[in-house]
């Protein structure tokens, strides 16, 4: 076991746990955001850099700080480690930089994007980004491609988290999907647009944190926040059959796997459940799905904002942007 302190709160976790997972065990505001790490995909993480944190003390044996910020999703804890996430201005500044990098070539076409409302990049930009852009250059664009008859790839929106390639490698057999080219010309592709035709290929859509991979059977049918998510199951020979039905009245518009509070699917579903049972009668409906996230789909309504708290929070951020250390939040105590 290893004792770690994250933003001043102590927790004991199993050896080998990453900083991110230790923070997730702790829960709350100090959990770093993650755009590429996906706990059920082997080898994921380390790429997007939004989860960077400061290690102010390496361990009790070697208390020196780690000179560079580290990716919390792929750095294991050590006994006596002291980690700063929200409490480090350096981290917040670097994270703002990463969000800016993720957005400079993003089309920002949320008004016509199916992912809007359940998009990790929207949430991230809302929480950590700046509201204006410093980028005046031309944005990179790609042609849209069909990956098989059910999935649309809109590469321009991709943040290259590599999750979908890992689904293709780890969940499906017969790998035909990967990354072509280099640098900002990299693109997710099925080799020469070969269709990904496999029982579990649809999971690529669920792991995609942005609107780069969308379900063609749902495209443009409805804004996601106008649908009602319902937990449902059916007996299936290929997967657990546990899904979420996204319904409007009695019509099933879309079927997805169930995501946890960090947007991760723990039980992947098969294509039959996803695409071939758009009929409420095929399912046993368990009840409304509690979407434990901060985006607009949460509980099918917009959160009521406490204006006083919001004002205080904005003042706090302004102080920080003037170069001062981030003042304690209202509910934080020293």
């Amino acid at each position, binding site marked *: 076991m290893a004792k770690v302190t994250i933003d001043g709160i102590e927790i004991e976790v199993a050896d080998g746990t990453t900083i991110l997972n230790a923070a997730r065990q702790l829960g709350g505001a100090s959990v770093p955001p993650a755009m590429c790490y996906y706990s059920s995909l082997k080898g994921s*993480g*380390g*790429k*997007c*850099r*939004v989860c*960077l944190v400061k290690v102010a003390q390496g361990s009790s044996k070697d208390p020196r700080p780690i*000179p*560079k*910020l580290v*990716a919390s999703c*792929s750095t294991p804890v050590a006994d006596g480690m002291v980690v700063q996430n929200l409490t480090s201005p350096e981290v917040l500044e*670097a994270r703002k*930089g*990463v969000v*800016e*990098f*993720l957005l*400079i*070539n993003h089309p920002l076409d949320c008004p016509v994007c199916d992912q809007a409302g359940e998009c990790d990049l929207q949430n991230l930009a809302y929480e950590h980004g700046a509201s204006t852009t*410093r*980028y005046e*250059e*031309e944005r*990179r664009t790609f042609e849209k491609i069909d990956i098989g008859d059910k999935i649309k790839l809109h590469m321009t929106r991709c*943040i*290259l988290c*590599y999750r979908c390639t890992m689904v293709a490698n780890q969940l499906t057999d017969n790998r035909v999907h*990967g*990354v072509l*080219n*280099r*640098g*900002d*010309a*990299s693109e997710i592709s099925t080799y020469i647009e070969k269709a990904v035709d496999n029982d579990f290929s649809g999971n690529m859509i669920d792991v995609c944190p942005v609107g780069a991979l969308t379900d063609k059977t749902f495209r443009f049918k409805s804004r996601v926040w106008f649908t009602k998510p319902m937990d449902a199951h059916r007996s299936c020979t290929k997967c657990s059959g546990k899904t979420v039905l996204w319904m409007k009245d009695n019509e099933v518009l879309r079927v997805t796997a169930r995501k946890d509070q960090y947007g991760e699917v723990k039980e992947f579903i098969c294509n039959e459940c996803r695409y071939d049972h758009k009929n409420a009668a095929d399912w046993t409906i368990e009840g409304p799905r509690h979407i434990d996230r901060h985006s607009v789909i949460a509980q099918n309504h917009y959160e009521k904002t406490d204006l006083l708290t919001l004002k205080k929070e904005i003042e706090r951020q302004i102080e920080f942007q003037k170069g001062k250390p981030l003042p304690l939040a209202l509910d934080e105590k020293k």
Partner: protein
Amino acid sequence: MGRQLLLEHIAVPGIETFEVYRKMGGYASVEKALKTMTPDQVTEQVKNSGLRGRGGAGFPAGMKWSFLDRKSDKPRYLVCNADESEPGTFKDRYLMEKIPHLLVEGMITSSYALGAKTSYIYIRGEYMYVLQILEKAIREAYAAGFLGKNILGTDYSLDLYVHPGAGAYICGEETALLESLEGKRGNPRLKPPFPAIAGLYASPTVVNNVETIAAVVPIVNLGGDEYAKVGVGKSTGTKLISASGHINKPGVYEIEMGLPVEEFIYSDQYCGGIWKGRKLKAVVAGGSSVPILPAELILKTAKGEPRLMTYESLADGGFTSGTMLGSGGFIVMDETTCIVRNLWTFARFYHHESCGQCSPCREGTGWMEKVLHRIEHGHGQMSDIDLLVDVAKKIEGNTICPLGDAAAWPVASAIRHFREEFEYHVKYPEKVKNPKHFEIEPFVSSKQLVMV
């Protein structure tokens, strides 16, 4: 000329053949190591020699070797990094092309020390003709019993392969190199684990530069302590410098560490001074990644001491007034050089070569290139200069591999030392429209150009 430990026999006709190389004393280190020393004794000599990695980072070679996991029951590998793609660096090519047996000999002696039974030379794809030279040398070494089963009748056996890259700079980064060698996309790995624990095929692996491995030959022949007598302080031995740019005698030079930079630039034994009688403006001392220094800071440190060709002296002053020896790619620029144009070229390179795995490098390198393109072509704004500094700062230290840093440092240092020139581009867009603007009329800074 100082002592030549690597290139001593380079001018001997036919030195690329086994016969002549052997006649000049070649393969003595293999005989000495295999017949009279244990592998650990060879490693000990390399430790004593103080040899530091010649690929760029300058990590002590003996220490890297001692980190190799010798308890693992997996095979161990030695991989030679011959991907040499850093702009301004061409020393490894020269060595491999002219005296290929030196590398083959170094590989055998080093593999013996590390207990590797299979070793690889990963060479950049553009060096295809050098690959053929190396393969011929390897065939000759097999025929002479220096490679293959039971070398020189001992129970040590080694197979050596050359593997070409496919044209990516990033495959010079050691973990990307290993991925590529395994047949995968050349993306750098997350570290730890380091190659010494889990490298090629997840087995303990040492990755060393061509010159580092070649230096093992004189180290074993002379003994580590004797080798350490060449050079100064922690910069021991000799170093190959690829000298290019506005000098009278560009080429590859073997220098003793500790040679004054001024002597290296102006002496007829080396660069022979600035061409066309012009003045020195700036130097990139260790390949395109290291900070650029203006003339007055490359010749003398900020404290006014003469700058020497050593790891320590070049780094004196940190990144405020110093730079790095890096890979020894010494690029000299005269007074007609446009620093902005040069930086744009470097930025274009890093943008093109980023593997694209991590967001700061993938997006930031392209951003910097585009802004520099605008400034250089007379479409910049004053705010762009600070924007570049900030983007570079947001990349540096926040990426998976050091390519992000390598892209950020030149930007930060060029603006640190030559800010006036960036401002000039913004203020006088008409004057910079002609790509040869400073050839027509050199930029005169309020700082003085140095004439020696």
